[in-house]
């Protein structure tokens, strides 16, 4: 299978055995940032809710600095796990996070294969290092296939979908 992209076009035709299968519409910066913001809001909202519940429970227990430190460390670890699990699970199962679903976009691999755990982890790591000043998102504006740094690292594209 070959992914053919004319230089300077947004839409690309995926060709399998010289047969045109589908046309891909690569998704740009604004749409992806909105999708990511929706995901971030969901992740933080859930984490906040859980944090409040845990804090309320601990507020009625006897005060202990050691216990507090343990709870904070456990909370931090749980948050990281939740953050990683959220993206990895959605990317490897449907290719869409809830934010992507809302914006009707999907993560696909360049070779049209399934997105495995390693691809998802690499993409997430790339996303993390791309966050300061959104520098990793800037190539989306300049790349003909609208790929960010994390897309290049994981060999993925973000394309528009009907749902």
């Amino acid at each position, binding site marked *: 299978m070959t992914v053919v992209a004319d230089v300077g076009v947004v839409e690309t035709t995926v060709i399998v055995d010289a047969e045109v299968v589908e046309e891909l519409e690569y998704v740009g910066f604004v*749409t992806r940032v909105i999708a990511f913001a929706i995901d971030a809001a969901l992740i933080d909202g859930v984490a906040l809710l859980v944090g409040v519940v845990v804090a309320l429970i601990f507020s009625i227990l006897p005060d202990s600095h050691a216990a507090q430190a343990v709870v904070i460390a456990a909370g931090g670890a749980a948050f990281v796990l939740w953050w990683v699990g959220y993206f990895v699970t959605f990317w490897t199962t449907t290719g869409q996070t809830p934010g992507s679903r809302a914006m*009707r976009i999907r993560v696909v691999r360049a070779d049209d294969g399934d997105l495995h755990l390693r691809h998802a982890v690499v993409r997430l790591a790339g996303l993390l290092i791309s966050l300061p000043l959104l520098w990793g998102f800037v190539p989306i504006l*300049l790349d*003909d296939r609208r790929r960010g740094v994390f897309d290049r690292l994981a060999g993925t594209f973000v394309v*528009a979908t009907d749902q």
Partner: protein
Amino acid sequence: MPQEQTTGGAARALSGIAATALRPATGMLSLGLRAAEDTALWTFDQLLASRIADEVVERLLESGQLERLADQVVDSPAIERVVARVMESRLVDETVARLLESDELWVMVDQIASSPAVTDAIGRQSIGFADQVAGEVRARSARADERVERIARRLLRRRQRLGTETP
């Protein structure tokens, strides 16, 4: 006085004779009428049972006469006046008030509202609305994608994408 009594008696006697004489005739007449009625009903039954009735109804429907008649009835000022009078009467107000007071109405409304057909329809409408909103957001964000890219490429003096260049 005796003369008046004699006249009255004669009249009664005459009417009695006439009634007696006409009795067979009226009997025959009523028998004839009943036979005619039975024959008419039998003929009508036969007509209804035959294809004629169906064809008559079909032709009547096809000819459009019924529609024209219905149009004339509906458009007639007399019908309008009757309907207006009925609507303005206290009867309608009282009927509506009683209907609203009845528990059966609200039971029926509850049953309709919770029926699968209605809930499905509401669900479909909600999904349709969500789809519409999502589609519009997506379209706007796609336009914003193009605009932001155009600006970024212009600032960095990079060539524009084919098909997205401004004229």
